[in-house]
């Protein structure tokens, strides 16, 4: 794929299919952001805080903590390197702005055949609220196995591109945590390209931030690859969380499973989930399922949920989607309260149970415990 592809499309025609969206690393190929564009229609644009400007700053080495096992290496390379862009290139303006403004790229290399169960940690904590760009490239050599946590904390305005490249037979458990404090904006585009028979587990956890938008796009262009994309979020007053997972089935016999669950606990909280799955004509034997569920704990919160499934071949193993947003189930509450459990505790149980289904997929004890603790703290007082 060329580094600087041109916008493919004629003007004024609405984009119909996911694969025909313009792709480019150049900001000028994308118009100024407008609400009329589908991809920006929900976003509170005033909270972008400059991430769509032509020139923004850049995250520096000292704002990132990297903790890796001995066999796994990290280095900063010049973003003009041929390596950059191996997993994908931007499909929207904010991603292109981050791409162009990150002059250096942080590369994490897992050597071929290297297996480690220890979680590798990349923690991003910006030292100011200036709009900044960051580019990370994670590569796993053939038949390697790794677990990685990309954690975002503190207060910041971050435009981020993350590339994940899995070699043949490689396995990665990847978690991106958005634990921002009030006053933060984060737009992260994450591209993954999977080698033959490789497996990616991609988990998005969004707990804080005024605007958090994560767009994980997974390209399945080698046969037999499998991706599981999970997401869990808890949105309070002042939070806007948007998740747009995209799976592009190109090769034969690939499997994808997408499941996001969120709870909204404060008035004004807004979450958006748009799940795109494209099964191309070549993707014979595809098996895919996507699901999003939202639980609204209060009046005045809003959850948008849009599953999109495009199928260009009938020769598939399975394809389905489900989406539902609802309030507390009165019958569940009645059942728990009929056993003496007070309303507040009953609601906590139900919410924790609801989110737990995803949390237990993380399979990193430290992260799970921290998350459960954070959720419990957040749910204090719900229902009272």
């Amino acid at each position, binding site marked *: 794929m060329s580094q600087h592809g041109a916008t493919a499309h004629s003007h004024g025609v609405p984009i119909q299919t996911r694969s025909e969206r313009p792709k480019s690393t150049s900001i000028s190929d994308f118009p100024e952001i407008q609400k009329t564009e589908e991809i920006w229609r929900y976003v509170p644009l005033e909270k972008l805080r400059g991430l769509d400007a032509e020139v923004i700053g850049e995250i520096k080495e000292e704002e990132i903590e990297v903790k890796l096992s001995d066999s796994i290496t990290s280095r900063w390379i010049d973003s003009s390197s041929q390596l950059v862009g191996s997993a994908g290139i931007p499909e929207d303006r904010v991603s292109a702005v981050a791409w162009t403004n990150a002059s250096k790229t942080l590369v994490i290399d897992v050597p071929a055949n290297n297996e480690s169960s220890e979680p590798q940690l990349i923690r991003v904590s910006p030292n100011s609220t200036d709009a900044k760009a960051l580019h990370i490239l994670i590569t796993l050599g053939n038949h390697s196995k790794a677990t990685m946590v990309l954690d975002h904390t503190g207060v910041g305005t971050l435009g981020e591109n993350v590339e994940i490249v899995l070699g043949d037979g490689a396995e990665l458990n990847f978690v991106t945590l958005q634990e921002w404090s009030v006053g933060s904006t984060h737009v992260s585009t994450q591209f993954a390209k999977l080698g033959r028979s490789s497996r990616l587990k991609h988990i998005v956890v969004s707990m804080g931030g005024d605007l958090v938008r994560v767009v994980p796009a997974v390209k399945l262009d080698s046969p037999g690859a499998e991706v599981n994309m999970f997401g869990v979020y808890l949105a309070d007053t002042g939070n806007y969380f948007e998740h747009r997972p995209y799976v592009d089935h190109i090769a034969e016999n690939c499997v994808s499973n997408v499941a996001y669950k969120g709870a909204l606990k404060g008035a004004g909280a807004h979450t958006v989930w748009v799940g795109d799955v494209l099964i191309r004509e070549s993707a014979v034997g595809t098996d895919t399922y996507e699901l999003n569920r939202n639980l609204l704990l209060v009046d005045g919160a809003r959850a948008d949920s849009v599953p999109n499934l495009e199928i260009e071949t009938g020769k598939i193993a399975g394809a389905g989607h489900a989406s539902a947003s609802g309030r507390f189930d*009165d019958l569940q509450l*009645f059942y*728990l*309260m*009929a056993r*003496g459990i*007070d309303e507040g505790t009953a609601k906590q149980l*139900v919410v924790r149970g609801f989110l*737990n289904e995803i949390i237990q997929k993380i399979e990193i004890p430290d992260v799970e415990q921290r998350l459960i603790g954070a959720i419990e703290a957040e749910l204090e007082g719900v229902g009272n």
Partner: protein
Amino acid sequence: MATLEIKNLHVSVITDQGNKQILKGIDLTIRSGEIHAIMGPNGSGKSTLAYSIAGHPKYEVTEGEILLDGEDVLEMSVDERARAGLFLAMQYPVEVPGVSVSNFLRTAKTAISGEAPKLREWVGDLKTAMSNLRMDSDFTERNVNEGFSGGEKKRHEILQLELLKPKIAVLDETDSGLDVDALRIVSEGVNRAHKDNNLGVVLITHYTRILNYIKPDYVHVFVNGKLAEQGGAELAERLENEGYDRYLKASA
């Protein structure tokens, strides 16, 4: 010694099409240690009585009283009723995804007793109660009622009855959908709770089958929201032979 008094109870069910009156003046008194069977044809108001005692939000008491040892039950929230000593074994237990049986039972026990049970004692009690009900030990790791068979759901209800030790329990068609073995196991559980805790039992059933295992002191027949007849265990035998036709003709 506990007494549950139901006086002149009128109850409507709240539906999208408006309220519909189901119970039209019920009087019943249940004391600790007594077993009352409530029988009647479908739609006679048996389950409505069960839900009204427990405080289900879809049922509205329009007239009458429910008192537990003189305390006004209708003034209590659902959880307060349970903590006061009332228990409803549900006909259709509700799934609670992501909440394990173990976590649920411990939370409920803590709520009822007002303090967390001592771990060693609790684990022992749980193990004994489960083995009595022929439940596998890995049952506690499953999510509440999720994927349970009909028999498992009812056993899980009786497990709660035995562990939470209420004063008065209402069993709403606990026998429905059970095969003979499961019916026997579940009935043994009810009899244990009755004997060990001097439990007062309101046994709601459409069929007399369960009364072969749980012997009622009193039998009440509900027809069209009213008590049509009351008697002892012999009344159940008569219903076994004659069915409900006699009452339905009379009320028609």
